[in-house]
């Protein structure tokens, strides 16, 4: 824990500051903002899947729930501060209920996948069918297939007429991602996080040690949903409209692909995978030669075949191989010099 505060936090802050500063020179901030948001969404699944061993096929459900919660609350309240908070709490609460039902019901991995998938489908179908004028929450019409446009976007707390958009919104999202990253890093270093990793490794053993695995998995699942909900709220602000497509299965599948490609079991991997693949999709969207989804599929297959651990672990081990050798050469050199000087003396 000491090295976490002394080394890891300053290093993370430094790298993040550099990235936040340099990236807008390479990519427009409007695109960059959505890459950061997807990064956060990928990170949410990377946490519960990579460290908790919970494969959730419905992370998009929490993303969409966050976005819709924000939109509906923003229309009713008018100021964006409380809606942002609700967009984190509602998905977290929903996930806590869903998670408790699944984990206390002793469901195994496959059924967990099926249930999260079906929940996403139900939400998608439900929101899609709310086009009628009867579907109203407060002042907000759910709007069915057309979604909800025209809600209050992010503003300076307490001042609904001072909006945060454009470049400041990019910095807002990037700093939020950094904060979430640091909080999760701290969580994973804490006893709770370490036991969560133990649960990923062997659930029975952790239970036999006397830990309540069900409660712990439910809490972790809920934390993942909170992060996804936050990403959803930011996405709603970025797009200035929420549609049922947020809940689509395609979206859910994409999050899983981001995690696999970026590197499961690492913190940076899912963020890199999400931002990288989303940027690739953005670039490909500007031409019509190759189909977008086809290429995403090919990339996934190639990664599973040749880099099954993902991009970030591969880069890290490459780094270690090259640097490890260089360091050992230097050591040998130093030893030789020392023995030489001893011989002379």
């Amino acid at each position, binding site marked *: 824990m000491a090295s976490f505060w002394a080394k890891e936090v300053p290093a993370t802050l430094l790298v993040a500051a550099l990235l936040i500063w340099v990236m807008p020179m390479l990519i427009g901030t409007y695109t960059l903002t959505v890459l950061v948001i997807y990064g956060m969404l990928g990170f949410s699944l990377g946490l519960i899947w990579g460290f908790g061993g919970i494969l959730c096929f419905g992370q998009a459900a929490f993303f969409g729930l966050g976005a819709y919660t924000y939109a509906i609350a923003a229309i009713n309240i008018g100021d964006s501060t409380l809606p942002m908070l609700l967009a984190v709490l509602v998905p977290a609460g929903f996930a806590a209920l869903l998670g408790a039902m699944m984990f206390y019901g002793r469901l195994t991995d496959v059924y967990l996948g099926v249930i999260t998938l079906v929940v996403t489908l139900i939400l998608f179908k439900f929101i899609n069918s709310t086009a009628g004028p009867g579907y109203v929450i407060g002042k907000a019409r759910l709007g069915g297939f057309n979604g909800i446009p025209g809600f209050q976007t992010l503003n300076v707390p307490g001042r609904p007429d001072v909006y945060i958009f454009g470049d400041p919104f990019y910095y807002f999202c990037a700093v939020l991602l950094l904060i979430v990253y640091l909080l999760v890093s701290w969580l994973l270093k804490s*006893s709770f996080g*370490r036991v969560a990793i133990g649960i990923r*490794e*062997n659930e*029975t*053993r952790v239970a*036999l*040690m*006397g830990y309540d695995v069900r409660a712990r998995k439910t809490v972790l699942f809920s934390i993942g949903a909170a992060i996804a909900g936050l990403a959803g709220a930011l996405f709603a602000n970025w797009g200035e409209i929420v549609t049922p497509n947020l809940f689509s299965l395609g979206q859910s599948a994409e999050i899983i692909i981001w995690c696999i490609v970026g590197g499961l079991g690492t913190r940076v991997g899912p963020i890199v995978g999400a931002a990288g693949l989303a940027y690739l999709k953005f670039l490909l969207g500007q031409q019509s030669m190759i189909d977008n989804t086809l290429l995403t599929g090919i990339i996934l297959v190639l990664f599973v075949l040749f880099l099954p651990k993902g991009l970030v672990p591969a880069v890290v081990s490459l780094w270690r191989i090259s640097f490890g050798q260089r360091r050992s050469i230097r050591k040998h050199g130093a030893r030789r010099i020392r023995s030489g000087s001893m011989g002379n003396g």
Partner: protein
Amino acid sequence: MAEIVLETVGLTMRFGGVVAADNVNFRLKAGELRCLIGPNGAGKSTFFKCVTGLLSPTGGQVFMRGHETTGWHPHQVAALGVGIKTQVPNLMDGLDVHENIWMAARRFLPMQDAMRKTAEVIERLALGPIARTELGRLAHGERQRVELGLVVAGDPWLVLLDEPAAGMSADDVERMSAIIRDMTRTAAVVIVEHDMQFIRSIASTVTVFHQGAVLMEDHVDRVMADPTVRNVYLGKKA
């Protein structure tokens, strides 16, 4: 008379038409070391699983230090201060020895004490040289020893071990029996075991299971001399 730490009353477990444990009445005193033996399918492991909460018995009751624990989850049983080692090794393969033992110690101790306890257990079980090695890379004997370390780290007053000596070399078995004897200073120990050499080396009272029920209960030497036990356990020839 010493306190009864583990008692089952009429414990029964049915799988469909098969009665795996049939009306088992079992009592264990504090500080006692007890081995459960019996041929394959005698119901030892089923009994073990019913006691530890890995299975929920169809009938009967389980008591631990006066608490009725029938149908409890394993984590609730373990939280009482019961150390459990299952037949199949259950370890966190991706984590190192230190992290594995730390997690067991952390359950009952605050952070600093857990660190101290971990160092102490690693020292006691002579795991020092492999403390930072991932479990997945260790040999079978070492893994068994680490799993005992997990049990010890929780400072249990009741220890339940399912085949701790299975597949181990003679040296490993010897070290294992030393560790177990050490455990009995602070805990009552129940061991399900096949290895008669091992049971003799820790010389204890033995409960013989046969066809789901308790056949007899006595000191290991008398049990081994008993013709009925020799019949069921070793086959008709003996």
